[in-house]
């Protein structure tokens, strides 16, 4: 409906208008030391996720360098088996649980999804903040253990019986399984927040088939997390029970079964791969569209393949267990399923290629990283096809061939898109551009080093070098290739240093970005960079898939939300029709306190079962403090208001 006083569109929000000032004071996050722990705004929490997980990427990289240094000579005396086993376990666990998922799923998701939806904040911001603190708790437990000689030494998969009470004395394996509990609860919390945000807080008019690809993939991943993570929590939980109170789940002598653990673990473990890869694909889809200067080709097929990947991901876990000697029929089935995964992934690749082919490619820095992704992930995916074939897998399983394969898949599918995304969204996050020349140096150093290291490992695997060996005999002729692989690490390290320099430099003297430096179509570019605490001056409405490209200049904006309380708009899951207004709970210290009590209970249960009954009451108290209705709410409502049933 036309109104008397036309309002100023979002992209013109200078922060000077009266409305902007009111919103800013309403949505302000507390400052200072305690304020930091009360903060519940998604951009701040998202940045914390990104920074923290990047720190653990660096730490995991240091461990990797130690591993390469140890293997550079046969019978090297740099590390003994005790330390080496801790180091490679810490490397795997940190990279998967403390970096890959928190960065690709939580970090990018929490920061970008609400902006792309056109929302003022993420749904359940307190749960979101709680998830962050719990993630940090898990990280501290794992690394604290490592620094006190209690680092897990049973591999990131912690197979029983090696990780069981009979063969892992002490508390090393317990540290691992509780770290799992921490990080998985955190991921599940964020999954709930993201899925709800995507389904309920989209801008009016952003129907399902107008959702940006990134939202589609985040939605699928959130649901995959919800179905996959419980499996590993059960696995590590039963392991903890076996070790702590002497249950017999994995004790063959008393009717237990060691393979049960592997089934539970890989039922999570394989979907996990897609939980890590799909965010990368989401970033690539976004960037390919932006830098080909055209709508992405094959929106519907890509959406279908993403959903299909999410589904098929749950039916291939046994291809991690081919060597256990399963019946042939099931082997054939799981081979077929594993090969089937290629179809949706291939579809995405072809659609990206077609988009570039019929577009106008601008090879800016983020796009360069996308090409790096095409190259590396393709190699990883194709060697994955080899592993799907049972006979070949029986030869190269648990060798450095597999190590090479999944580093190509994970670094290719997560790290390259991550850097693409960082270069792409850094202007939005920091308000300044990253330096192009340094970025190019970073790319080429890392690209060359990566391929030097990991392509070499294929040959080592074919020459019969098994994984997880702390050294090897001089007569095995493995040194030359190991040296080659270790040299690659030097290049990658240099690349990382260049990146860090670039970030620190650009934070201070980088070129001012402006709202939309890349001319992208997503709503996250519609407000100033960095975004104001209320994100949008007026919540936008949408009438196309690429709002900033295709929406008419007179696209309506939402008015009528109160600016004296944190009112948000809830829309319909499918057609994004406005349904009702909701209220953002705002900053609070309780999520942090709850995280503290929960962490205390978790850590205590490493040492004694009594931690559960003793640790529960404080958790309950903090939870009540969290959920107890506060003074200002419920807000006074217009009399005779209709509640939507």
């Amino acid at each position, binding site marked *: 409906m036309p109104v008397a006083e036309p309002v100023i569109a979002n992209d013109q929000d200078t922060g000077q208008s009266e409305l902007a000032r009111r919103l800013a004071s309403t949505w302000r996050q507390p400052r200072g030391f305690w304020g930091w722990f009360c903060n519940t705004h998604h951009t701040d929490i998202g940045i914390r996720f990104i920074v923290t997980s990047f720190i653990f990427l660096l730490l995991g990289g240091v461990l990797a360098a130690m591993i390469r240094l140890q293997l550079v000579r046969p019978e090297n005396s740099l590390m003994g088996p*005790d330390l080496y086993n801790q180091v490679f376990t810490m490397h795997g666990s940190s990279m998967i649980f403390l970096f890959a998922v928190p960065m690709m799923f939580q970090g990018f998701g929490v920061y970008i999804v609400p902006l792309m939806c056109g929302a003022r904040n993420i749904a359940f911001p307190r749960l979101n903040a709680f998830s962050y603190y719990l993630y940090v708790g898990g990280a501290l437990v794992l690394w604290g253990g490592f*620094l006190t000689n209690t680092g897990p030494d049973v591999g990131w998969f912690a197979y029983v019986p090696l990780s069981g009470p009979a063969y892992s004395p002490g508390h090393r394996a317990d540290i691992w399984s509780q770290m799992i509990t921490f990080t998985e609860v955190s991921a599940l919390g964020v999954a709930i927040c993201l899925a709800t945000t995507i389904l309920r807080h989209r801008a009016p008019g952003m129907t399902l088939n107008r959702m940006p690809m990134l939202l589609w993939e985040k939605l699928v991943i959130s649901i995959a997390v919800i179905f996959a993570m419980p499996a590993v929590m059960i696995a590590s939980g039963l392991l903890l029970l076996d070790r702590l109170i002497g249950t017999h789940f994995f004790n063959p002598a008393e009717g237990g079964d060691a393979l049960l653990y592997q089934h539970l673990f890989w039922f999570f473990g394989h979907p996990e791969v897609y939980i890590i890869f799909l965010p990368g694909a989401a970033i690539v889809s976004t960037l390919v569209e932006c830098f080909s200067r055209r709508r992405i080709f094959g929106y519907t097929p890509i959406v279908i393949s993403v959903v299909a990947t999410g589904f098929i991901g749950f039916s291939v876990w046994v291809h991690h267990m081919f060597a256990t000697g399963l019946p042939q029929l099931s082997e054939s089935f799981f081979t077929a399923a594993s090969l089937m995964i290629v179809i949706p992934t291939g579809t995405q690749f072809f659609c990206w290629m077609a988009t570039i082919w019929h577009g106008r490619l601008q090879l800016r820095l983020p796009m360069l990283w996308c090409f790096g992704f095409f190259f590396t992930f393709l190699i990883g995916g194709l060697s994955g096809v080899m592993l799907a074939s049972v006979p070949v897998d029986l030869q190269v399983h648990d060798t450095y061939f597999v190590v090479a394969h999944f580093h190509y898949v994970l670094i290719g599918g997560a790290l390259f898109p991550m850097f693409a995304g960082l270069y792409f969204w850094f202007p939005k996050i920091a308000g300044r551009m990253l330096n192009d020349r340094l970025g190019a140096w970073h790319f080429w150093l890392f690209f060359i080093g990566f391929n030097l290291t990991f392509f070499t490992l294929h040959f080592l695997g074919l020459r019969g070098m098994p994984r997880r060996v702390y050294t090897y005999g001089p007569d095995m002729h493995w040194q030359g290739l190991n040296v080659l692989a270790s040299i690659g690490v030097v290049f990658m390290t240099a690349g990382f240093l260049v990146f860090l320099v670039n970030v620190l430099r650009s934070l201070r003297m980088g070129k001012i970005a402006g709202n939309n430096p890349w001319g992208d179509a997503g709503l996250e570019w519609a407000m100033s960079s960095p975004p104001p605490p209320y994100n949008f001056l007026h919540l936008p409405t949408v009438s196309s898939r690429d709002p900033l490209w295709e929406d008419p200049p007179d696209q309506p904006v939402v008015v009528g939300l109160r600016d004296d309380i944190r009112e948000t708009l809830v829309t319909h899951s499918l057609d994004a029709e406005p349904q009702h207004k909701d209220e953002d709970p705002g900053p609070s210290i309780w999520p942090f306190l709850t995280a503290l009590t929960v962490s205390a209970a978790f850590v205590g249960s490493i040492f004694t079962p009594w931690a559960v009954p003793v640790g529960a009451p404080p958790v309950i108290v903090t939870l009540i403090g969290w959920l107890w209705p506060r003074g200002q709410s419920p807000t006074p409502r217009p009399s005779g208001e209709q509640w939507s049933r």
Partner: protein
Amino acid sequence: MAKHFYFALLLVIAVLLVSCKREERILRQPPPANDILNTIQISGLNPGANSIPTPPNSNMYQESAYAVAEGQKLYEEYNCVGCHAHGGGGIGPALMDRDWIYGSEAGNIFSTIMQGRPNGMPSFRNRIPEYQAWEIAAYVRSLAGLLPKGVSPNRTDQMNIKPAESSTPEQTPSGITGIPGQHQ
């Protein structure tokens, strides 16, 4: 430069200080102390057995869960089970109760293993290396719940015939120990 060195040094020391003895994997054994056997008396012959100073390096094994677990394996492999069962006793005296004919300290158990005792306990001197004897002694103490829970072994992967050592209540050794032979 020097500053960095000192900082690194401090860091290392700090880490070492906090690192747990419990998790120590003792892979390289200290050279065996030949005079140890002579420093240990048989508690059966003088009351107040628990006051006997035990040789320092016994603690190293009693504080490491890994060493106790090794002791448990050796207890099986060297067939201590044959006479003492899984602590319940049989041909030999029980090890999970409060009675210690020759003393309950690690040093006493060590010397019992090494010297042998009347009525059937053979001497394993030269047969069992000293560090293994210390590990077995540590494990035997855990049978009676005399070791901290964090160090005592939990359930094994064998048949479940007795509660795990880590869940055995502490059997405080009776002060006056019995007379040799009485228990056979």
